[in-house]
């Protein structure tokens, strides 16, 4: 989606140089759209948000919000943070330690010219929405981590910004509140006419809250699309793990694909050239001895990791190629899977999704 000039959305080409790290990311967010920025630690997500907030000037590129140029080093334009109408929730909250929770939330309202009483009223309202009405008069030092995060959320939302930047807004919330706040956030975002850029590590947050995902690695965009698109066809290891798939890149010759890093996999249909192969861990069957069934892909490895997840156990196999398999607890016992045990993995060719790299 390309925004026309003067569109109410965000159109940014962020280029920043920091010592030893360069960010080069293009973001386009329509009005009312929620974009999730995903990526491993140190990918540059927070850096990108800082640029959008006006806390870090761009080295090159430009950023335009609702037709207004916010930053353009070539043209010599830089709108400072307070004039941007951008709300931000910081990864480590940054609540003002000398103000009570309600005054923290009221701060933005007052800074934008609201009267004291009116600002406080609205702030109490917002605190109520994040279930903290009774801690309104408490100082941040006396709040728990999760409570602090929710106050930060309320503080950013209260100013009704044009562009809302959320750096892991739900990370410190406990499981029970989280679902509630997530739905509430979804509701607020739905009702919200501005653009939203959200950073999260929780794939569920991203899937539930975002209209579109942008995956950043090492300062560059490696994949983008709707949550469903990305989940269906991950293009990097990180994305694959995020959505819980095994992913390989390789060179295809007919139905056989030489996997980068070792090993060969067979696909159902013939393909050519550089491809990605993906399949779910649940598609992998484990056997003590070499399997003789219909599965066309069979290879041997050692158990490198075991992790219980509800009813199933995720098994990591050190093999060529490496693979994750989800099996039942019963299977673990039956196969006597322990760290270092040698087992066979089997995957049916029909289970493997194959798409061009």
């Amino acid at each position: 989606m390309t925004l026309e000039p003067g569109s109410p959305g965000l159109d940014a080409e962020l280029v920043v140089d920091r010592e030893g790290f360069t960010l080069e990311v293009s973001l386009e967010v329509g009005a009312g759209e929620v974009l999730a920025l995903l990526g491993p630690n140190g990918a540059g997500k927070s850096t990108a948000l800082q640029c959008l907030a006006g806390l870090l000037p761009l080295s090159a590129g430009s950023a335009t919000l609702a037709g207004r140029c916010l930053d353009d080093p070539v043209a010599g334009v830089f709108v400072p943070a307070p004039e941007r109408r951008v709300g931000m929730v910081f990864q480590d909250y940054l609540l003002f330690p000398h103000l009570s929770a309600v005054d923290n939330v009221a701060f933005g309202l007052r800074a934008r010219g609201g009267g004291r009483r009116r600002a406080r009223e609205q702030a109490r309202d917002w605190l109520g929405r994040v279930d903290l009405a009774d801690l309104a008069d408490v100082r941040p030092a006396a709040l728990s981590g999760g409570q602090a995060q929710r106050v930060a959320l309320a503080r950013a939302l209260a100013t009704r910004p044009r562009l809302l930047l959320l750096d892991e807004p739900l990370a410190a919330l406990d499981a029970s509140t989280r679902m509630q706040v997530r739905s509430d956030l979804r509701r607020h975002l739905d009702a919200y006419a501005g653009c939203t850029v959200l950073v999260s590590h929780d794939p569920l947050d991203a899937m539930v809250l975002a209209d579109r995902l942008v995956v950043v690695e090492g300062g560059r965009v490696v994949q983008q699309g709707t949550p469903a698109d990305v989940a269906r066809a991950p293009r990097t290891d990180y994305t694959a793990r995020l959505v819980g798939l095994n992913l390989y890149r390789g060179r295809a010759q007919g139905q056989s694909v030489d996997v980068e890093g070792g090993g060969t996999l067979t696909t159902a249909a013939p393909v050519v050239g550089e491809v990605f192969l993906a399949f779910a861990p649940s598609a992998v069957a484990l056997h003590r001895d070499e399997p003789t069934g219909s599965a066309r892909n069979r290879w041997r490895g050692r158990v490198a990791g075991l992790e219980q997840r509800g009813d199933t156990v995720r098994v990591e196999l050190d093999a060529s190629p490496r693979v994750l398999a989800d099996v039942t607890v019963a299977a673990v016992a039956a196969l006597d899977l322990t760290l270092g045990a040698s087992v066979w993995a089997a995957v049916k060719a029909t289970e493997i999704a194959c798409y061009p790299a």
Partner: protein
Amino acid sequence: MLLLPAGLGFAFLVLPLLALVVRAPWRALPSLLVSPEVGTALRLSLVCATSATLLCLVLGVPLAWVLARADFPGRRLVRALVTVPLVLPPVVGGVALLLLLGRRGLVGRYLDAWFGISIPFTTGAVIIAEAFVAMPFLVIAVEGALRSADRRYEDAAATLGASRGTVLRTITLPLIAPGISAGAVLCFARALGEFGATISFAGSFPGVTQTTPIAVYLALESDPPAAIALSLVLLGVSVLVLVSLRDRWMTGASR
């Protein structure tokens, strides 16, 4: 391990005072306390030191902020120049003020010629002299506090729409309140004890420009025990003021 040097430091500061108290002419004190001259000098000292501190806060805090936060060519020089009045012997500082604001001073001659204003030998001159001598203390203490403060709170405030001034007023200053408090105490105390610059620039006339330290100095010439007693009175009053002021500030801002 820390208590030993701390105790030594405390003893170092307090024992001389103790010696003063031991040798003080306690019989002379009651009559001093009720004498109108002492009252006048004390009142003048407190008024002038307070006014000077306020003047320093109004001018000095923004200056400290600029030094700590703004980035402009020549900042090092500006900072160095701000430090200068500290090392100037106070008497010379007073002379410098005369050269600037006196009847024949660089600026003063115009004040005199155009507005008929003459600053020296007035209470205003006392305040100016005290502020000149005391302001660097405030500026340096506040700049130090600003530099150790976490700037990201200011970032957060900026994203909430607060202008630089609002950020300074509502976030930065409250966060560094202990530092400002320390600076203001230094400033107030320096102003209260100020002698050389005041007498050079403002002179010494009872009720107008003769502050307590000047009275102490003069008494030291004619009646040393009375001078010591007067110093003790000055000490007592200032300690009262400082303790009540400072503890409030410090506790108010502590997290």
